[in-house]
């Protein structure tokens, strides 16, 4: 009996081993670290990965998901220790550091080898000539206007220039009723207000905070922007508590009819509607300097994607990147995220079904994506330094020129 069972068991074990071994040889498992999964509807990113796996037999994708900040730290450590996942979700602010660590693969050779149509992508982020990141989904930052407050204040034409914005902000401000024209979050905890709420004024007018790859904060565009923000503050149009205000608080104030205008991510449209279904608001592009008629730079934050330089499966990783950047899949992903596509041909479904998103999509199409912090070294630190100088200016400790000069000095030390 014993002698009969043993050969049978051995045969089964051998067959199982063979099956497993061939399976293991056939399957490449890609690790994909990102913070997108928790921000998307449950199971939706996994479903896209399942479709990718079905379209690419032999490639499996393991999603490593976490909140944004955790993912950032995880990627920094992974880059240092050479354990970065094959495919990584990236924020433009990180790529310079990661590139300095030689952690990101140059996707140029992959694009050439696969004859990838570069014209279909909205942007390719390059550092030192290396293509290190594609923005997969972009969250643009237009100006949200509370139409009821505007109407009550007699603002019939929504502002298109800085002067019109200042005028509208003054009209909408009634400090005795806790109502202000604009809101500026400059908390040092998350200094992204510098990028989204301050530098966006510069980019909107087709201007730049850089010159020849170096900071140019003492130039006219940045000094003018600082003077403009100071004039809004001096006129008492900015909601108080600027120095500790966070982005969430900014949105809350807008939702509760306490501010007339704010620059904010389009991703918050649904949140705003959920918090206050009666809020009557519209979206406009960030106003420009007098006389500017060119294309408007549209500030944005993005979900970027890149490939680890240490990955042993770069060919397969590139397939996944291509898949996510393809017209159909990209359109599907950004529709789920309420974002704008990384593929210029993709059209998210919400732009036809939702008026606000449709308007924002028009702004998006007539302008260009602008975020000069993308690819800069220690971008968050640069924002913090600028933030401190802006706070000093708003506290009356220095002029816009002095703030710009002090920030320039601090930034140059990082370049």
């Amino acid at each position: 009996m014993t002698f009969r069972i043993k050969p049978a068991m051995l045969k089964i074990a051998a067959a199982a081993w063979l099956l497993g071994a061939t399976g293991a040889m056939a399957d490449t498992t890609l690790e994909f670290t990102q913070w997108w999964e928790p921000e998307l509807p449950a199971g939706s990113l996994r479903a896209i990965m399942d479709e990718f796996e079905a379209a690419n037999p032999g490639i499996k994708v393991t999603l490593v998901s976490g909140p944004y900040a955790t993912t950032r730290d995880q990627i920094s450590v992974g880059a240092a220790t050479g354990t970065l996942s094959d495919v990584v979700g990236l924020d433009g602010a990180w790529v310079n550091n990661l590139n300095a660590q030689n952690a990101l693969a140059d996707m140029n050779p992959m694009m050439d080898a696969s004859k990838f149509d570069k014209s279909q992508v909205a942007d390719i982020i390059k550092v030192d000539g290396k293509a290190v990141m594609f923005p997969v989904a972009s969250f643009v930052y237009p100006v949200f206007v509370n139409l009821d407050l505007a109407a009550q204040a007699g603002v019939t034409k929504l502002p298109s220039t800085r002067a019109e914005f200042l005028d509208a902000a003054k009209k909408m401000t009634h400090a005795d009723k806790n109502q202000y024209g604009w809101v500026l979050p400059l908390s040092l905890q998350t200094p992204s207000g510098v990028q989204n709420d301050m530098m966006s004024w510069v980019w909107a007018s087709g201007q730049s905070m850089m010159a020849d790859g170096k900071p140019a904060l003492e130039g006219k565009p940045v000094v003018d922007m600082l003077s403009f923000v100071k004039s809004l503050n001096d006129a008492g149009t900015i909601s108080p508590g600027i120095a500790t205000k966070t982005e969430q608080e900014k949105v809350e104030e807008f939702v509760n009819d306490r501010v007339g205008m704010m620059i904010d991510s389009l991703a918050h449209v649904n949140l705003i509607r959920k918090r206050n279904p009666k809020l009557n608001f519209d979206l406009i592009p960030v106003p420009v300097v007098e006389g500017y008629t060119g294309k408007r730079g549209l500030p944005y934050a993005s979900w970027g994607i890149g490939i680890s330089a240490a990955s042993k499966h770069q060919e397969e990783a590139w397939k996944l990147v291509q898949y996510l950047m393809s017209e159909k899949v990209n359109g599907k992903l950004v529709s789920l995220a309420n974002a704008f596509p990384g593929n210029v041909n993709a059209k998210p479904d919400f732009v036809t079904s939702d008026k606000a998103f449709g308007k924002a999509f028009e702004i998006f199409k007539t302008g260009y994506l602008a975020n000069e912090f993308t690819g800069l070294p220690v971008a968050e630190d640069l924002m913090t330094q600028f933030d401190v100088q802006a706070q000093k200016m708003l506290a009356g400790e220095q002029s816009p020129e002095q703030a710009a000069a002090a920030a320039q000095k601090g930034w140059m030390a990082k370049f």
Partner: protein
Amino acid sequence: MTRQKRTHHRLKRAVAPYLYLSPSLVIIGLLMLLPMVTVIGYSFQNSAVLRRDPSFAGLKHYQAIFDDPVFWASLWHTLYFTCMSVVFHMTIGMIFALMLNSDRINPTLRNILRVLYILPWLFTAVIIAVIWRLLLEPNGVVNSILLQLGIIGSKVEWFSSPRTALHAVTFANIWAGYPLFMVSLLAGLQGIPKDFYEAADIDGAKAYQKLIFITIPQLMPIIISISLLDFIWTMQVFPLIWITTGGGPIYATEVLSTYTYKLAFSSYNLSQASASAVVILLISLGLTLFYIRYQKAR
């Protein structure tokens, strides 16, 4: 017993205590000493953590932080925040403990007060920070009450103004931390023999004299122990300051913990952040040694 056996037996006896201690020694080594030594090592390296082949930097990073005026401002803010917190924790804790220990207060009211006074201790630092942000925001309850009472003429930006921010976070921390003193001192008060007070009564001592000559001397060991511990803990407070002000406005509430955090996770300068962390460690170590010496002396 042969000589060899005796030696073996002696050796066994000598090693036995260390064997018993070894599990805890391994845990302490892995969870405390190893990270500490690693951070100290990072502080002497260039591009620590971020590069696989960091070079030796000597004392460069210590020099850099000592040359940074923001570091000295942070040190001063830390000392102010810590000293004020400890003094007020102790004062408020003592007043409340005396109140809860007094026979003159109705027992039911005393029990209600006992629950109320201990409430701040039940909240996490994040909740405390959110509560005080809401209360002290320019359109918050505190400003509204102070305006109505005519104490202030216009809204004060408690956390956003460089003039008031450090006092505001210190106040929030005082509110959050006094129950530790209160509970410890209350336990101490209940341990003071009644005879002392009866003898004082016979001698005609007044209430304040009993406080100064009996209560405080009897509580002194507790006061010193808890003060030292509170000093060490308060020096390292991070979430409350980070969530309320982020170290701002400008650098008004920058303390050593937020300064170190920004170096590590905003500037990605983990070497300098490690040097700053080592400075905090040395200050804490000094206080700890003082605490241990005090405990031994007792």
